[in-house]
């Protein structure tokens, strides 16, 4: 009993409504569990955590090389870069910007490498609301297929110091 010791014969299986509820709840738990491996195979949105070790300096080098080879324009002084469909794209999180602006094609798949060269950052694409964690030292690879056109805002949703709210970027999908 709750505040007194129970009667000695307390060890017994549930009965009646309680037994029904325990059974129903267990089935529901199994449904929710199986939904995840199912979606991992059949679903189009998954978080596989593919990543590689990279130093911030090395990542910055790769980003610069990517910008030099694929730059197609400039906006507010920020390079606009268009990777080739099916190819690698790079996005660098830095206090306090996402660099560079990416120009992608709808329905094409890209290997988007995201990392940070300083603190932890949160990659968040608005208004579609996709969110991934970005850590220094980790080259986080998202195999991404934009399925809608427009200009999308990238914001940071992991606290990264006093200018956190200034950290924005852009992905243009045509």
């Amino acid at each position, binding site marked *: *009993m*709750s*505040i007194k*010791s*129970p*009667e000695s014969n*307390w060890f*017994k299986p549930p*009965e*009646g*409504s*309680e037994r029904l*509820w*325990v059974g*129903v*709840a*267990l089935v*529901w*738990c199994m449904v*929710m*569990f199986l939904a995840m491996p199912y*979606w991992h195979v059949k679903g*189009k*949105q*998954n*978080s*596989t*955590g593919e990543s590689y070790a990279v130093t911030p300096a090395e990542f910055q080098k790769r980003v610069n090389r990517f910008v030099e080879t694929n730059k197609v324009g400039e*906006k507010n002084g*920020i390079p606009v870069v268009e990777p080739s469909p099916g190819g690698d794209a790079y996005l660098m999180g830095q206090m306090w*910007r996402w660099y560079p602006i990416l120009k992608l094609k709808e329905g094409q*798949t890209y290997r988007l490498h995201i990392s940070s060269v300083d*603190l932890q950052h949160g990659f*968040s694409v*608005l*208004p*579609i*609301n*996709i969110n991934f*964690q*970005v*850590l220094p*030292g*980790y080259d986080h690879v*998202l*195999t*991404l*297929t934009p*399925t*809608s056109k427009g200009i999308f*805002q990238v*914001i940071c*949703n992991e*606290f*990264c110091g*006093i200018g*956190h*709210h200034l950290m*924005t*970027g852009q992905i243009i999908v045509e």
Partner: protein
Amino acid sequence: MGNFLEGRYRTCNTTGLPVCLDAQFFIKAHAVAAVVFFLIGAIAALLIALTRWSAVHLLPAMWFYRVLTLHGLNMLIFWIISFEIAILYFAGTSLLNSRLFSRKVAWVAYVLMVVGALMVDYIVLIGKGDVLMTSYPPLKAHPLFYLGIIFFAVGTLIAVFNFFATVYIARRDKTYEGSMPLVAYGALAAAIIAVVTLLHGATVMIPSFLWSLGLVEHIDAGWYRLVWWGLGHPSQQINVAAMVAVWYFMATLTTGAKPLNETVCRAAFVFYILFINLASAHHLLVDPGLNASWKIWNTSYAMYLAVLASMIHGFTVPASIEVAQRLKGFTRGIFNWLTSAPWGDPGFASIFLSIVIFGFIGGITGVTLGTEQINIIAHNTLRIPGHFHATVVGGTTLAFMGLTYYVVPLIFQRDFYFKKWARVQPYIFASGVVLLSLGMSFAGSYGVPRRHWDVNFTGAPLSAGFDAAAHFFLGVLGIGGILAFTGALIFIVLTVLAVFFGKSIAGQPFHGWQPAEKFKLSMEIFSRKKDEKFEQIAHKVPGTVVLVFVLLISFMVYYFANWKALADVWWVR
């Protein structure tokens, strides 16, 4: 037979439970410390809500993050764990009919906890720890910030050891017969989870402390997150276990309820111990470096067995109340037992609202957001605090408030002033928390980030922002915050007035919340043996069955709606 020392115990005039006077002293000490931390956290909460309400936008950026750091640490760690130590000391002594193992050990634990917490608060307030509660590296705080947390954690571990030692001497001295009471069993579960949690805390905080001193060169961001959340999430599971124990305790005290089936309730606590710590994965679902199988297995607490445990408690507590009420003669229809419940008793109102908010808002959102893939549309948005304010504030804090309405008269032996205010306080607080939580959840579903000073991104090189609907929900958050703060303030003022200036009621029974005859009837129902009539009613609890199936249907609707929302976003793997 109790093992109390001569002259160091008394018998509670209301419940008849034994009270070890040494334990009583430390229950008071920890409860007072807890309420002080709660006050600090509550003031911070109001300032944060009024800043996130974009139309008000009260604090400047630096103070917003500083106050947010203060809020997280004081609420999630200092308030709740201090209160939980008080619960452990109570459960280990009064419920097991035992003396407290050691006063000296209790003093060491208490001093370490209070000094540690004050160190952290001081460092944060002077601006040397603007790293938020999680202190993710490479963000670095002053060494005393980490040391303060280490002090608090070690103090807690020592207090938990004192509890284990108390359980041991109770067992050795045969102070109780047979199995320990369920509430003590739940407290034991919370204590075991606490040890696991605090060991993670030590593993991550000691290297961080050395790193802040310059003695360790590098802390890996991914490693830190993995281990830190072994502290961060399971510490909330101590709350869950302790809160459920409080539900059972208060259900007994306010309605005379007793569990229908001890095996089921105890098994559910064992599920918590075995599986609930895996939920630290909830925070790492969109992290690099961890693969899908790891994420799926851990985020589901091994096939949702810890969720099953909560679904079981969510049934057994109301069902036990239903049975007790029906035995009192409230048998008409499906819900007469519930409408005739003591809603004017703040102890009862608090725990029932706590069960509803924890289950319907906290539980449903938590499991859904913790689904590996759905987390993609939720991670680090306001949906996350929308979830945990329903569990930790609407669930745990409200339950602890309800318990306090009995701790003050029964342990401090002081009467409350302004009892009418106490009777409405749980409703004010609960409505505030519900609005706050819904405001956060809906704003978050537009992608509004958590821990963010300005969602208009004023001055950013590339513009960003949200439409009017998201700002409307931030307004709901703000109004909910004001209401919840009002409820919290009423609670604090009433408690402080009673503890320090209340009329002493030592030696008298307390019947301030329910008439004496109602309380006597409840206790009479409670102490009856489980006869055939009890079993007959217990097998068929129609009111509770309706409630839990409404919960299940809401759960399914919310869960599948989120899969649908996920299916509409860009393809990613």
